[in-house]
Structure formats: structure tokens, C-alpha cells
């Protein structure tokens, strides 16, 4: 997957800088949709659909699910940051699907974000993806070879989701199993290159907030505080409009004796 993203990046820059790598691109790749908007919820006969509008076009973000779902929907009363790639897939609930897609609920209140549309014939929600039972996710693995863990975050957020807490749990489990000598926790602050060309930088303290939180969890899970080094990089990561979401992260590295 990393490879695929790299390829996209290269072709993207070729497209936008006329092939001269020295010249900085003005805009993220044309197939990307990186924007901040008020989310829209549309009721259906089954599950509600989440949509957002950008430059007169409607995009489908996802369906209501549960806390164990992959997709965490937006929230009315808040803007949403959408970072996705346009697909040619048929419209869902009237919106163009984006894949891959990451959305972030922006923390500040915005009461203007308040659109709830009624169900409408012809705009049906697709069947929900079969839900993985939370119990499955709670079962730890048995493999102990992994040494590096990446915990992704939403924009401006240090909240660990149901899924990302499992990653930290795995890291702790393996760290204990291999009698870890040192654990390095590194927090990052990222930038999103919006489709309108602007750079959207995360709040100043976010790298430290994220790293400290993960560090505290590791210690809380029984790893010696003396073995855990928490580092945060406050300088925002550079953006390319494509892999920006991957940079909002904490990495955990395990060093064995």
C-alpha cells in the first residue's frame, strides 16, 4: 500500500508541476478531495448516510455504524475535515464515494452545521458491512515479532478509538513478552494540504498530547516508566495532499536487549 501511495505521489507531482520536480506544486492532485465543510446527514429507510458538499458536488462519507465500525461518522454542530480520493464508483445516497477516505470531526463547536435531510425514495443506504463483534477485536494476537506500531489520529485529536487502543494494547503485550529494554514513543503533528491550496496545520501542542497519552497508557498497562521514552516533534510534518493523514500519528518502537 505504501508503494501505491508513493506512485500516486509521483504521478501527482508530474501532473501538477509539468514534470519539473524542482518546482513546487500549487495544488494537491486533482483526484483528491481535501476540504473542510459542514457534514450532512441524510435519513434513509435503514441507516442514515453521511455526506459533505465541496464546490457544488456531493460526496458520500459513510454510514452510521457502531463504535466497533471502521468508519466513525461526522457530528452535526461540528465541521468535518474530509481527506479522500474520488472514485468512479456509483453514487451512494446521492454522493460520490471517496476511497481511501479519512474524516476528522473538528473540535470547535459550529452551530451552523445542522443539516439533517429526510429519507427520500431512490436514495437508499447500502447494506451495512457485517459487524465484527467487539469480542473478536479484544482477543490479543499470539505473534510477537512486531517491533514498530503506528497509531493514527484524527486531525487535531488525541482521542484513541476502539481500534487504536487495540494497537497500543498489542504493543504493550509484545513489549512484555519480549522483555523490552526500551520503548520509544514518538508523537507527530501534521499538516493537511487542502484542495483549495491552503495548508491546514494541526494545533501546536498536539504531538506532545498524543505522545504523552500513549506513553501513559503503556505505563498504565504495566511497562516500567523508566523504559518508556516519550518524544514529540512539534514542527509540523510536510504535506503532499495524499499521505497527510498517515502523518497524524504516534509511533511506538520496541528495542529488545
Amino acid at each position, binding site marked *: 500500500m505504501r508503494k501505491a501511495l508513493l506512485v500516486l505521489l509521483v504521478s501527482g507531482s508530474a501532473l501538477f508541476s509539468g514534470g519539473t520536480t524542482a518546482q513546487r506544486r500549487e495544488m494537491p492532485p486533482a483526484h483528491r478531495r481535501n476540504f473542510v465543510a459542514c457534514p450532512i*446527514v441524510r*435519513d434513509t429507510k435503514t*441507516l*442514515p448516510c*453521511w455526506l459533505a458538499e465541496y464546490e457544488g458536488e456531493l460526496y458520500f462519507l459513510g454510514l*452510521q*455504524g*457502531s*463504535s466497533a*465500525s471502521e468508519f*466513525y*461518522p*461526522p*457530528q*452535526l*454542530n*461540528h465541521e468535518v475535515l474530509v481527506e479522500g480520493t474520488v472514485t468512479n464508483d456509483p453514487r451512494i445516497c446521492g454522493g460520490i464515494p471517496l476511497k481511501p477516505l479519512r474524516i476528522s470531526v473538528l*473540535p*470547535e*463547536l459550529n452551530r451552523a452545521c445542522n443539516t*439533517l435531510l429526510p429519507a427520500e425514495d431512490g436514495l437508499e443506504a447500502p447494506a451495512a458491512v457485517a459487524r465484527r463483534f467487539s469480542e473478536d477485536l*479484544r482477543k490479543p494476537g499470539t505473534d510477537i515479532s512486531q517491533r514498530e506500531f503506528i497509531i493514527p489520529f484524527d486531525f487535531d485529536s488525541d*482521542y*484513541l*478509538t*476502539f481500534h*487504536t*487502543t487495540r494497537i497500543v*494494547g498489542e504493543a504493550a503485550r509484545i513489549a512484555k513478552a519480549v522483555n523490552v529494554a526500551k520503548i520509544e514513543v514518538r508523537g507527530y503533528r501534521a499538516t493537511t494540504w487542502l484542495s483549495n491550496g491552503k495548508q491546514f496545520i494541526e494545533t501546536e*501542542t498536539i504531538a506532545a498530547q498524543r505522545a504523552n*497519552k500513549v506513553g*501513559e*497508557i503503556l505505563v*498504565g*498497562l504495566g511497562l516500567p516508566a523508566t523504559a518508556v521514552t516519550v518524544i514529540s516533534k512539534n514542527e509540523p510534518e510536510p504535506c503532499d495532499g495524499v499521505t497527510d493523514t498517515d502523518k497524524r500519528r504516534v509511533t511506538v518502537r520496541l528495542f529488545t536487549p
Partner: protein
Amino acid sequence: MRLALLAGLLGVLLFSRARQDVIGQQTEPLRWIEAGAGGTLPAEMYFHNADGKLGVLLTGGPLEMKGHAFFEPQGINPRGCVTCHQPSNAMSVSVEAIRERWRVTNGEDPIFAAVDGSNNPKLPQALASSHSLLLNRGLFRVGLPWPPADKTVKPEFIIEVVRDPTGVNLDDTYGLKGANPTISVFRRPRLSANLKYVLSPDDVFNIKTGTLMAIDPETGKPASMNMMADARHLTLRQQANGAYRDHQEGRQGSLRREALEQIVAFEQQVYLAQSHDRWGGSLVEANGPLGLGPRALADGKIHVLANNNRDPVFRLFDAWKTPATMAKELTDAQREFRAPVARGNDVFMFRQFWIRDAAHINSIGLGNPIKRTCATCHNTQMTGQDLAPGWVDVGTVNYPTWTELPVFSDKAELPVFKLTCDKGAAPHPYLGRVIYTNDPGRALITGKCTDIGSIVMGQFRGLAARAPYFSNGSAKNLRELVDFYDRRFDMKLTEQEKVDLVNFLSVL
């Protein structure tokens, strides 16, 4: 009669016979247990209420109250735990019973102790008006240190007292400016029964915070964080010691070891639920609903996520859906009552509405709004609590959805606080950084702006025996509780659905 009843095992038998000729509830044996009075608590007890009878079960068998720490005063005032946790009142205490005590004792009952049984300890205690929150809403004063006792907590907001009808929050001894700065909120007693459900721990991670669950210091395992309106106590021992200091004015720091163990052992074996309908018929029937009556609580499995149609929160009510499947011996009136109860269960479990702007439900990845049901929040089998730590801002205590009268109304009874959050702090997801509330709830413990007005949902059992409802006693009866939800979530419930829901809640 009283003596005969207290005479041990035979008591149970006589007791149930005696009930039939006792019309007035107040003369019912054990209706009000005074701390220190002694006597025997039978292993099985039934108490009348407006919707039928409540059943209380002691799985450890009959209990001598004389010398038992739950039933004897432990601190300097003459209160026992039982003073506010009465078997007849579903191990809580109803406003009806409180008023009766005022009448019978001319306001001398220990339940009215100045410390927290009055609006403000400095008011003239002989006046009913000095106890209006207790007499009108069943509320006790809960004084919590501010900033929080846990010095590692860095509050993200400042608190101003905007309205202080009791005078206690601005008082120079008891208030925010006193030597021990304190915020007083007013809360209902919660059930000291069915506690195996309340205390069952969830995961290592707390889905409400995305961090680790607090650790139970006694077991070293994650705590349930589902006790008290603000989850400030993690274990029954911490809780009992807290009650000893706060309600009983105990001065020794904590209860004596034996007393503490006796209390905890007792609490762990009390199960209760509504047991009979208004016509005296048992709610527990062969082939009937499985989730009713106290025995079902004693035998039930803990920590079952039940927001589904296979094995719902209060189990299946299918047997009551049509007269054809109901028990044969039921009268027409009883049949006419059971059908709405079964429908009410369906409303509770399956009637969808837009749940919106509820912090710690909509804000934890589910989305805002979500089209779900009552059981989304109240998802634990047998009790209707939240399987995860159950603090949610459902709107009961925060402006503008609170049930209290307008902020500056002269009739407002509860204090109003204005909380202003730091710019750098994560704001309350739906109210922002300036919030008016009559109980900051969980935020008084964590200091977090996002927690303002989040109250831990309590269990739904024995509701008929312990009105009023919600932590701030704002719903006088079950109909008002249902009306609150109808308004709060614009549910557009039909009159029929409301009646059904009320009937359903009344049998739990």
C-alpha cells in the same frame, strides 16, 4: 403483630399473610427501618407501591439488624446506611417516604440531619422550607471539594455560582470561598442493591475517554466506573467509607474494618425488582417474561450487552404480546395491563429516534445524531445501565435542555453554576466553553470541560418504589421522565407509546 413478624423464619410466612389485611402502606412491617432499631430482615420481602409490589431478596438468608453496620449508626449522627437505603423503597428512598417521615417525626428523623438532609446546614432546621430539596425532590446535598481532591487533576474550567437558592454555595463555611472550598450539588440516593451488575468491569480501555479504565485498588483489575452519579468511588469499600464521612459525619477517616466488611458483604447479596402487579398478581409467571422479579436479578448473568432483539435488555416480553399466550389464570384487567407492558418494551428496545448532542454517546465515534433507541445508552442486560462507564450528558442538568426552571426564575430550586473552560481545553462537544449547569457531574471529579453535565446512568430497577427520577429528582413520576425524553430528542411519541413506556418501566 410487629413482634411476631420479627421472630425469624416464621416471619416470612406471617409477613405475606399480614400484607393482605394491611391496606395503608405506612403500617406495613419494615416499611420504615430506623437505624439501630434491630429486628430481623426476612430473606424475602414484599412492599406495596402504587404500581403493585416490590420484591427484595437477601441471597444470604434472614439478617439480624441489631449490631449490623449497615443498620446501626456509625458516625456521630444517628443515621445508618438504611436511613437512606430502605428495602421498601428499592434500597433508595422515595420523596413520599421522606414526607411521611417529616410528618410522623415533626422533622426530627435523622434523615433530615443538617449536614446533607437540609438545603444548607446553617438554615433553621425546624422549618420544612429548610429541607425543601429533600421534601420536594428527594435530594441530599453532596458537597465535593473544588478543585478536586485528587491533586493530579488540573481543572480545565473555573466555576462561578450564578444562582444559590440554598445559600450553601456562597456560604463562607460550606461554599466555594470556605476554608475547604466546596461545590454542593443535590442528588438522589442510588440503589444499594443488584450491585454485581453495577460493579462488573468492562474492558481495560475506557471507550468514553480512549484511555485506560481506572484500576480497582483491591483487585488490581479495571473498575466498572459505574457507581455514583459521577463515578467518584471505584469500589464498595471506598463508597462506604465516603458515605460514613459525608452522610454519617464519621470522624475516624474510615469505618472500622469489621463494620466495613459487614456492610460490603450485605450489599453484595441484596437483589430487588418490582414483583407484583396492581392486582396482586405475580409478574413472574411460568412461561412469562424472564427478566422480572428479584430472583431473576439474583440469578442473572452480569455484563451482557443486550441492545439486540435476540435477548434484550430486560429479556423478552413475547408471552405478554397477545392474550392467547398469557397465563390462563389472569383476569381481564391483568391482561389489559400486560399487553402495553410488552409494547412498552418494544418502544424501549426498538423505537428509533435521533439521539443528538449527548456527550459521551454521540461524541465517541457513533456520530451526531444517531438514529437509535433508548437501549443504545441503556444497553446492559437486567439493569439498563451502560456496559461502558455510563456517564453521559443526556441533558438533564445542563442548560438549555435541563429540566430546571429558567436560570433566573425565582422558583428555581437548584443552584446554577457557570463553568468557563480554558481556551486550550477540548470544549464540551455540544455546548462549547461556557456552560450553565445545576450539577457539573463527572467534571467535578475529572476537571474536564468535555465531562460537564455527564451523569452516570443508574439502574432501572424498583422504579415504582422510589420516585422521583434522575439524579436531580427532576422527573416526579415515570410519565415526566418519558416526557423529558420526548422533548429532549423530539421523539414525537404517541400518547399510546408514552403510556406503554410508563407501564413497562413500572414493572421493572
